[in-house]
């Protein structure tokens, strides 16, 4: 395959983007290593797309410095940056054939028509669309259009390849396949990619690292595992994976773990680096197990976790095939629980005993 990678790193130094008095991106710094896929994740309006567009050169930073491959590109317009982008809407030129679309970037940068066509054909081959070159974009399905957009961005051998919510126009099943394909291609070619999404599951699935953004600033940066297991804020805990947020008391720290008092329970969680006092416990829905109340009579359970169970009432029970979802009422407020035990579900209205498993609980600042 002659389509090679010229992957380069990206660095933001105190970059801001202001529109009048409001800041879409506020003093953001991060760096992306060459050859990795980094996801910008956050709710809509958090500034992630603006950040992406600043990498592309479609938005100009109001302050700070942007480096690509160690060179300062802050003032460089999109045309002069070696960065390509796969758009949410794919942005295929409707008046050009698929092959012309893919060859477009080569042709406008002065590559001979013949060479451009050959490279375009290669690019289409790479995304599994060899032989579709003469069709019009409107004659392709959504997934195929997506691939054309990827091929078009790839053939220029960009230093950075950007994806702006590339899968949001596909149905759920196709989305899963496309995200695997994109990840595979990225790893195979060693591309530097920046990927914007608001879907946390997609982010966890494709990324080497994730930058979580909220309200124009970076909330947390880390590998998918770090973010899921050790969120540093209530927002990140809730946004990635979802969590039950319960008030607790941090009583002791040491050896990388912290001890938290929750009512009469005592739990051991990864050390959040917070001082002793009131904290918030983020409990993943699958970190709570349910046992029917009557079975053991509410005595201390089978020793499957840290501490005792708490009595709860099942408000709602939903059967989802692979697992059960419960809405519980407890002394700590409403709880949302995902339980893989579908063989013996607890019916709605019943009382039950909820226990916390050791994993999947993190302490964050209140």
């Amino acid at each position: 395959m002659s389509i090679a990678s010229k992957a380069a790193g990206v660095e933001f130094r105190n970059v801001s983007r202001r529109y009048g008095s409001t800041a879409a991106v506020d003093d953001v710094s991060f760096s992306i290593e060459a050859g990795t896929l980094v996801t910008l994740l956050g709710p809509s309006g958090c500034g992630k797309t603006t950040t992406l567009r600043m990498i592309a050169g479609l938005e100009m930073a109001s302050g700070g410095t942007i480096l690509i491959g160690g060179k300062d590109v802050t003032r460089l317009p999109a045309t002069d940056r070696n960065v390509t982008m796969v758009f949410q809407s794919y942005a295929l030129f409707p008046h050009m054939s698929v092959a012309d679309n893919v060859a477009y970037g080569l042709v406008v940068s002065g590559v001979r028509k013949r060479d451009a066509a050959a490279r375009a054909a290669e690019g289409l081959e790479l995304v599994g669309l060899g032989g579709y070159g003469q069709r019009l974009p409107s004659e392709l399905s959504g997934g195929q259009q997506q691939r054309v957009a990827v091929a078009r961005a790839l053939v220029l051998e960009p230093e950075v390849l950007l994806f702006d919510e590339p899968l949001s126009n596909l149905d759920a099943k196709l989305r899963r396949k496309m995200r695997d394909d994109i990840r595979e291609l990225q790893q195979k070619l060693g591309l530097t990619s920046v990927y914007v999404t608001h879907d946390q599951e997609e982010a966890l699935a494709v990324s080497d690292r994730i930058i979580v953004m909220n309200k124009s600033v970076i909330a947390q940066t880390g590998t998918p595992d770090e973010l899921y297991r050790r969120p540093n804020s209530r927002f990140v805990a809730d946004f990635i994976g979802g969590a039950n947020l319960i008030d607790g008391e941090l009583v002791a720290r040491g050896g990388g773990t912290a001890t938290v008092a929750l009512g009469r329970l005592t739990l051991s969680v990864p050390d959040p680096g917070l001082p002793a006092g009131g904290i918030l416990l983020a409990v993943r829905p699958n970190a709570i197990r349910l046992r029917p109340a009557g079975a053991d009579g509410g005595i201390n359970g089978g020793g499957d976790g840290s501490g005792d169970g708490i009595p709860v009432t099942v408000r709602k029970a939903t059967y989802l095939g692979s697992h059960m979802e419960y809405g519980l009422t407890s002394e700590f407020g409403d709880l949302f629980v995902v339980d893989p035990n579908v063989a013996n579900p607890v019916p709605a209205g019943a009382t039950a005993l909820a226990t916390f498993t050791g994993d999947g609980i993190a302490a964050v600042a209140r």
Partner: protein
Amino acid sequence: MRPRSAVWLALGWVGFALLPWFAGSGTQPALAPPAPGPAGSALIDGLTSGRWWLLPVALPLLLALAVTALPGLRARQPAALLAGGAFGLAWVAAQGFAIGLDGWAWGWLGALFGPLPLGQGGFGAGAALTALSFLFLMTNGFAGLGFMKGDRFTAGAIGLVLAAIAAFVFLPVGYVLSGAGDTGTGGFSAGALWARLAAPDVWRLSCLTEAKSCGVVWNSVFLAVMTGIATTLLGLAFALVAVRTGFRAKKLLRVLTVLPIITPPFVISLAVILLFGRNGTVTLAMADWFGIPVSRWIYGLPGVLLTQTLAFTPISFLVMIGVVQGIGPSLEEAAQTLRASRWVTFRTVTWPLMRPGVANAFLISFIESLADFGNPLILGGNYEVLSTKIYFAVVGAQNDPGRAAALGIILLCLCLGAFWVQRQWLGKKSYATVGGKGDNGIPSQLPRGIKIAAYATALPWAAFTFVLYGLILFGGFTENWGRNNSLTLRHYLAAFDLSWGPNGLIWSGRAWGSLFTTIEVAALSAPLTAAVGLLTAYLLVRQSFKGRGAFEFLTMLSFTIPGTVIGISYILAFNQPPIELTGTVTILIVCFVFRNMPVSIRAGVAAMSQIDRSLDECSLTLGAGSVQTIRRVILPLLRPAIVASLVYSFVRAITSISAVIFLVSPKYELATAYIVGRVEQGDFGLAIAYSSALIVLMSVVIALIQFAVGERRIGRRAATPVTLQEKPV
């Protein structure tokens, strides 16, 4: 890095040092030995003829040369270009305005600096090129500093459009404002301005109390309100018939909408005279059958109102058809499932949804009627309106440009007021509810009473309109309409005769000259109009920059300025240095470009909004510059809008009259002005023959283009591209 800056810099030097700085006679090749008089380039003239004020133009050029050529100063280049370009532009403009043909243009400058030995003429090629070079150096500097996303093309385009609008819309309007306060000796006084603005024949209300005519403002406003009401009701009736009934001949109604575009506005007046004038068919028949005495009743308010209603109903129809179509049938279906009867649905859902559109149609007709010039000129009689009064203040025995300017201000304020109301009040109140979904229900039929009313108004009126057009086409073949109805080709021969002379074909008909000029001017202005309009549309839709809203308002404003005001302002502004254009073909072209540009902008905006912005962004990230993006992506997708605006500006240039009647000269006579001249001489036969020739010519042009581009509507409704969404799924 910045080759284009270097190119513009080189052109700036060419304009300064090589090309003749001044226009007109007396210029000579720049490198010939200098001679006295307005001659040579600014460099030579400034050094040898004593026009020392031209030499500072070199300063910014030297500065730009230094920062471009010396690598050490590279980092400062953008700021230096910005400052140098701005200074250069300001200096060129300031010296141009300050120093006229006979030295200082303003007395106080002479008092301050002492008299000048000699004056100067209008800007020529050298000055124009140098100014343009300064403009682009400035915008390049601007882009280099990181504004406009660092895009030199965008910055340059915005600069160009703004400069053009400033020079050819705002400068002339400024001259009108100052001209209205002219004291007759070249000074300006608020007293003179007030005296003209408040003159009794402008504002008096004597028609209410005694049998005298009212002030010209009240006449205009009354006529405009009446026309507005009549055309809106008719337009609504037409739209209801076309959209909401099973009427068979809908295509015929559509023809109506093309008519005002292909017809010079005053042609309706001619037709009305053929029917109701003193020798008119109807008048004579009435006299024969019923003994009603022949009178001149048609000359005055009734005639103008009738013709304006005829002329502007199609425009109102176009607006209303959009409104009626815009009401989602699903809303009415919803009302009906909620147990509302047809009539209740119409009253409670349909009509409230249409109301803003109706008001809009009224305001548009109101503005059109105020600005209309041809019909009141021909049929007005003693009923004076602002537009004709402005004309007679300039061309008549009065020859009082100050008075014309004052009336122009009043007319301008009326139109701008209506425009402002339209934007402020209606802009936020539009309920257009067309969704992108195909299946939106079926438009419900009208309640019976309304249906009958709509048919009863629309159909006779349509028939009447077609009869009038038939008369125009036929009238040119009669000897003397009403008196001697024998058929003849005399008028056509007088206008379009050809003969063979010793040197071959001779265009001996009297109309050929003006027809050729008209076509030439139209053909030259159409591509320019389309280019400027689409460029502006591109900036409006595709680029976000500070002051975009104001920019849009400015470009649309020039559409609202009535033609007569444009005409009088161009005379006032471009009859003297520094920009001397009167009597040239350039002024006609410039006038058409800026009169018709807003339509081109609208067509462009409509078409461009349908092209997803990510397409150009994608092209940019793929390494294409703005220019390449426009050429390879936007223009191919915009082809229908380009054709629409080309056709529209071509046709409008041929049919418009109000502005150009001030600007034509014996050398460059236009068809419409010529026809009006014939009418004023009482030469109806030739006027009608020429008009019908124009109508036929326009129809052929439009039909040809429609044939070439395929089924598409032309005119105020922008031709919409079939499907330009890049998401077919």
